[in-house]
């Protein structure tokens, strides 16, 4: 396995309203390998989304480098597609089919209309939504919208899919179903996924690698291969090592929260 994306000592700072510098990411080093499924865990406000937007090219790092296939990221591109948390990420004036097709039409991917249609239908059937091709986004449920968004990302044929808590707004039942579906798609489609979540269970179920970020200013606290062994299948809570892994991650994340509170008590000025 080779490194598809390298995040090298990335620092991201913003200046706030008073002109004070606020460090969000404080030296992040990460590698994402071809075909890996990396789940990034962290307390809210730790800069997970910022990291994803940096990889996506929507923002540029203050210092450090992000490389895809050895080339520095200069802006957004078709090779890195985003899936967002909100249900409103589909274009409401386009049908499910057109939403998935749009990136292909814009970039003239596919020899003709027929070939594009085949591609779109292939990915719509992968998320089991081929019957809803002519529906408008407002006519389908939240879970279905997220599946369309995943299909849209896949149809773009990216090297990596960047997912920003795509299931966070779903009810737990739908969430479990979509986790399984995404896992199967990842197995089948052989894509690289970077998946942000604040849910430990989700990280264990999905991730081949699990990363824990500290609270802002963020560093990487944990970067491990998922230790839970389910024989390559989906990692349900009865899988070997699940509980230990959950406890380990929970401790690491709680430690972040705890440390943060201690700092706050001791020198409240240092917290922005």
């Amino acid at each position, binding site marked *: 396995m080779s490194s598809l994306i390298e995040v090298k000592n990335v620092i991201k700072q913003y200046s706030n309203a008073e002109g004070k510098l606020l460090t969000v990411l404080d030296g992040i080093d990460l590698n994402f390998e071809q075909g890996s499924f990396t789940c990034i865990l962290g307390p809210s406000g730790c800069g997970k989304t910022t990291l994803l937007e940096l990889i996506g090219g929507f923002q540029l790092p203050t210092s450090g480098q992000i490389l895809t296939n050895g080339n520095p990221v200069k802006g957004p591109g078709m090779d890195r597609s985003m899936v967002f948390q909100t249900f409103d990420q589909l274009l409401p*004036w386009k049908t499910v089919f057109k939403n998935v097709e749009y990136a292909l039409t814009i*970039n003239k991917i596919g020899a003709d209309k027929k070939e594009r249609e085949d591609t779109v239908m292939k990915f719509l059937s992968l998320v089991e939504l081929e019957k809803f091709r002519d529906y408008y*986004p407002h006519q389908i449920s939240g879970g279905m919208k997220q599946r369309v968004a995943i299909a849209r990302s896949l149809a773009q044929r990216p090297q990596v899919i960047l997912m920003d808590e795509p299931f966070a707004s779903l009810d737990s039942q739908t969430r479990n179903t979509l986790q399984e579906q995404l896992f199967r798609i990842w197995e089948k489609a052989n894509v690289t996924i970077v998946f942000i979540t604040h849910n430990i269970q989700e990280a264990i179920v999905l991730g081949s690698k699990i990363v824990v970020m500290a609270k802002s200013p963020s560093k990487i606290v944990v970067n491990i291969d998922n230790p839970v062994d389910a024989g390559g299948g989906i990692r349900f809570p009865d899988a070997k090592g699940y509980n230990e892994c959950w406890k380990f991650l929970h401790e690491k994340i709680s430690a972040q929260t705890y440390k943060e509170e201690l700092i706050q008590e001791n020198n409240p000025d240092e917290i922005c």
Partner: protein
Amino acid sequence: MGNVIKKVLVLLKNLFFKRLIFFIGIIVVWQVLFYTKLYPVQMFPSVKTIWDSLVNNLANGELLAKTGFSLELIGIGMLIGMILSVIFTGLAMISKVCRNFVDSIITIAHPLPGIALLPIIILWLGLGSNAIIFVIVHSVLWPMLLNTMTGFSSVPKLYKQLGQNIEMSKIKLVFGIYIPASLPNIYAGLKISWARAWRALISAEMIFGASGTSSGLGFYISQKRYDMDTPAVFAALIVIMLIGILVEDIFFNQLEKRTIGKWGMVSQ
């Protein structure tokens, strides 16, 4: 019996019947006021004389010709206004300097009544149709521009990111993302502009009078007032209102139903 009541209720829910009842109410009140003889007949004609005047003037083609002429001017004025507002919005999108410039123009020009510009317009363009079109463009452009720009600036950040993600060019981003996403605002601007255009047209015509050989509804109204033909004045007003209802109910409603309504972009 219950069935009949249900059917009547369904009918009442229908916008058309609601409107009809409203109009019948106005007509009845009007006629009652007429019978009280509180106002002289020259000022307050009966429903019947207004109706007769409307039918006669429509039948002899005079009212239709005037209406047609007015509509033509409005059409030209709105078209120019729309093109200009697209150009201005485009400019405002390109750079911050342009954006400030467009904002300043709107702030200065929007509250300025077109009629206040008349002396200058007459000096520059004379008394012809061009002057009237200018007043219409002035009244159409600013509300349209204001609404389009509001629409553009309230396009969700996420749609822009999506567009960038799939490597859309700036032009494609405008036509593929910004315009459809701002349609609710653009329609609102169109509706306001349409109403403003009518007002501007009628008042400009009443002041300019006939432009050359042809003239529109505004001139018709002021002419009939000179003749003390009050029923004909009301007849013209009715035509203006009817056109307003037709455009609102048929054109705008259908347009919204077939676009943003179908896409769930309106809160119902």
